[in-house]
């Protein structure tokens, strides 16, 4: 009480102009009303009585080379973020709140009403693993090293609008922002906090690998590791934060090991031999044909499809409109119609995927349903009045969907042919369409040879509409260079989305981004209606305002046919050895492996059964 009072006094004396709202135990993008959990509540997806103990072994692909999670060079070891090093705030994975954070290292937050500054009150009991308390100095240090040349540039970018961090007292820090951004206060909660007395000590260099000194405030510490081979974390029995409400039933394993594999086949085989405990499968073929042997039949390990409701975003063959081949919307639609998703899904993906119908798919709230109505319709009509063809007619008269998804493929091909005809592309002597003496030929570049098998049938289908597509697999560096210079005709583009769309929409669809080398506006979209909608999205301070703008933008994007929509998977494919139990609710917003690490626990009964069955070679009952 006294502390709070003193703090208030201090604040008033320093910053008389700023009015602070009441101290909060968490932050939400839409103000205190957006917080689902009360101060002493634990997450619904936790099981507070989960058993502690046991071991978890996981696999990681590709060698890690350092223990520093935030430096430029090298690959950080798995599990550093969150388990060893902590951020001030913990992002809730609850489906009921799109973007909320609760204190990790921070007991309470005062947020200025204009959202231009905020104050964190750090837990007095928070300690690093060497016993040193976590203080305001560590927060300031962690902010200042961002300007280090060898700090991870993505984080640099992420935190660039934080103007300064000041110390108010030993456990209070104040953040001031350079610009207004609805998300900024929450972004501060995602900065890794490093101990100043270790990494800021004279002679130490932040760009280093932290070879022997990975000291953080998280629930685990590093027990042993060998670069490129394995790393084992050990749970701190007397961790300072173990009794916090949001940590109840969390971090249950005594030891967590990651084994490193350099070859996907070896990794796959190792799992089936019991080399590690759990794995998320990313290939439809592996899921359909592999993990089917004796051990799964005997119940030693389990296969499970866990549904999720993360926003699917968009993946697809993006057409580069800087190439005038793709300028016409008719042509783009024809190209999209030639992709036979049904065939691919049946034959290549074993029916596991769902077609991407729009840009914010798989999300009840954001996905546009049926025909536009209400505010969305008004938005679209206004924009159509202003910008004409930038808002295609069908955005208003048709629902969102993948081109031709309800029609038989033969019909789609005929329609595509008709569309190309009407766009002025005539069949030439060699069966390739020609317009103004220019043949309809283009190249799809891929960075991953895995897409070859998916793209080759598409190539054959394109030939049926008189379009020749070459496929070229190049190395990552060359691919990135082509992307940076927009020097490609078609790529497989991925546009991931979060539940809280914001600034990043500019990089993906904004007109200025079309001219910025290296932006994600691969298709070269310059659409005034979309530009205006992006502005609305970024400025939105109410959820429904945001969702309306998102839906309007989604409808325009979808009906402009900038990409040939691919697919997404609506569930996580997981295999795990039959020795774990887990809470009833799976917070599917978080990656499934992350949930296993944080919320699952080793079930002694199951563990014993499995051991017994394995030694006898019998089935687990």
């Amino acid at each position, binding site marked *: 009480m006294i502390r709070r009072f003193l703090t208030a006094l201090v604040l008033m004396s320093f910053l008389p102009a700023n009015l602070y709202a009441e101290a909060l135990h968490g932050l939400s993008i839409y103000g205190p009303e957006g917080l689902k959990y009360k101060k002493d509540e634990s997450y619904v997806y936790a099981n507070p009585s989960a058993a502690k103990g046991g071991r978890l072994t996981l696999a990681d692909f590709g060698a890690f080379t350092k223990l520093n999670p935030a430096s430029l060079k090298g690959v950080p070891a798995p599990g550093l973020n969150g388990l060893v090093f902590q951020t001030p705030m913990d992002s809730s994975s609850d489906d009921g709140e799109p973007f909320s954070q609760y204190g990790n290292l921070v007991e309470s937050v005062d947020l200025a009403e204009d959202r231009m500054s905020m104050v964190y009150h750090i837990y007095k009991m928070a300690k690093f693993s060497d016993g040193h308390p976590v203080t305001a100095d560590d927060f300031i240090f962690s902010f200042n090293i961002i300007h280090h040349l060898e700090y*991870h540039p993505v984080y640099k970018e992420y935190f660039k609008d934080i103007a300064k961090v000041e110390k108010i007292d030993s456990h209070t820090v104040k953040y001031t922002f350079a610009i207004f951004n609805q998300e900024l206060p929450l972004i501060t909660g995602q900065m890794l906090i490093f101990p100043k007395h270790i990494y800021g000590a004279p002679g130490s260099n932040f760009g280093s690998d932290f070879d022997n000194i990975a000291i953080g405030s998280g629930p685990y510490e590093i027990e042993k590791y060998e670069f490129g081979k394995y790393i084992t974390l050990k749970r701190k029995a007397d961790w300072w934060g173990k009794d916090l409400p949001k940590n109840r039933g969390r971090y249950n394993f005594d030891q967590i090991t990651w084994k490193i594999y350099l070859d996907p086949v070896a990794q796959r085989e190792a799992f089936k031999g019991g080399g590690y405990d759990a794995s998320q499968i990313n290939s439809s073929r592996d899921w359909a044909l592999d993990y089917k042997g004796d051990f799964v039949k005997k119940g030693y390990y389990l296969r499970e499809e866990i549904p999720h409701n993360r926003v699917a975003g968009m993946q697809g063959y993006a057409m580069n409109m800087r190439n005038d081949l793709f300028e016409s919307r008719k042509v783009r639609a024809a190209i999209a119609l030639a992709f036979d998703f049904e065939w691919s899904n049946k034959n290549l993906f074993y029916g596991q995927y769902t077609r991407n119908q729009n840009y914010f798919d798989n999300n009840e709230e954001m996905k546009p349903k049926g025909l536009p109505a209400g505010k969305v319709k008004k938005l679209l009509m206004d924009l159509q009045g202003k910008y004409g063809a930038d808002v295609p007619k069908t955005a208003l008269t048709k629902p969102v969907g993948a081109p031709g998804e309800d029609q038989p493929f033969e019909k789609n091909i005929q329609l595509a042919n008709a569309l190309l005809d009407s766009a002025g592309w005539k069949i030439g002597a060699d069966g390739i369409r020609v317009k103004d003496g220019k043949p309809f030929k283009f190249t799809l570049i891929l960075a991953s040879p895995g897409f070859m098998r998916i793209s080759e049938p598409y190539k054959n289908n394109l030939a049926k509409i008189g379009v020749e597509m070459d496929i070229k697999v190049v190395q990552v560096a060359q691919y990135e260079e082509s992307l940076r210079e927009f020097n490609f005709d078609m790529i497989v583009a991925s546009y*991931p989305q979060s539940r809280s769309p914001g600034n990043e929409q500019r990089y993906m669809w904004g007109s200025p981004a079309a001219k910025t080398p290296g932006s994600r506006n691969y298709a070269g979209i310059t659409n005034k209606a979309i530009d205006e909608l992006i502005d609305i999205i970024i400025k939105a301070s109410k959820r429904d305002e945001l969702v309306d703008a998102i839906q309007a933008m989604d409808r325009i994007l979808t009906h402009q046919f900038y990409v040939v929509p691919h697919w997404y998977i609506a569930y996580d494919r997981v295999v795990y050895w039959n020795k774990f139990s887990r809470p009833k609710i799976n917070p599917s917003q978080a990656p499934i492996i992350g949930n296993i690490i944080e919320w699952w626990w080793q079930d002694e009964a199951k563990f014993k059964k499995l051991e017994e069955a394995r030694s006898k070679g019998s089935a687990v009952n």
Partner: protein
Amino acid sequence: MISYIIRRLLLMFPTLIGIVTITFITIQFVPGGPVDQMKSILLGHGSEMSEAGGAALGKQGKAQELDPERLEELRKIYHLDRPLWERYLRTFLWFAPEDKERGFWTNFFDYDSWEGFLVFKFGNSFYRNKSVLELIVEKLPVSASLGVFSFFLIYTTCVVLGIAKAVKHGERFDTVSSIFVLIGYSIPGFVLAIFLIVFLGPGDGAIAHWIPLSGLTSASAYGYEDWSTWRKIVDYLHHLAAPLFCYVIGGFATLTMLTKNAILEELRKQYVITARAKGLPEKVILFKHILKNALIPLVTGFPIAFLGMFFTGSLLIEQIFTLDGLGLLGYQAVIQRDYPIVMGTLFLFSLMALVGQLLTDLSYVLIDRRISFEESQG
């Protein structure tokens, strides 16, 4: 003799400079550079390249971005903002004082202010805080394991087999062993490796689970520290067996045939006939006289083989058995545009190859005085 060695050593300079120069020039034309690669790593684009990338991502699913400004910073870190000639000279010798205020001469006499091959600095990786030498040392366990074991396996087997074949020349043993050795020679190591993991790997379809696929040891297993030394050695050999087998299988033919032919040739020589006429036992003739002469070609190949022993790398076999060795290092450096590693390893290994060649030539002279080197120019 000494002048010959000196001349050979001097001739290495133009070769090494030429090698570095031509590689440097080549690199300038390669599409996509380290900054692009770094961008891909930093933004985690790799994970988006899986089949259903977009949806597979977790809650931090926002598309991340890098400002052109940040890329410019990267270029600076990699010295890519410097003119071409400076970057070229940097590979050989460059004065780059860390602390400019310390005074020119203090810096000048500080080893740390210099970089380049001429001061034995072979560069740092673009993507790791490690130098070429450190990286090579890091990969040595794999390379040396493969190298040393295969060296001894091949040499001992081949000499014994070669002798046996020469003695039983034309007999059934000779024919059959020839077939086996030649088939072994024909099977590409990595193809055999794939075949082996299908049928003997840990997978469901395998006939027996003999081959572990977890590097060189089970060090990641719980309680590995408590294992007895004996168990650790067995574990190591167990992990090594399959890759070693694939690695050596092709190596027997040449050396076996070489040994056999050399012995056969000696057998026809006058001194053998004389010795036989004198009634010396065959064994004595074989081991005392013939072997000494016949093994010359074997011995001369020794220096290069010995040097190479610690630096063997076979990308494909390493990849299949998940061994983190020199083959993989070199390949990844090329693919990822890690130019310091490309140049540094090339320089070091070229130097080693040249020295090895020199040693081989010298051993010819030392062993067989009849060969004169004045004829050959190197």
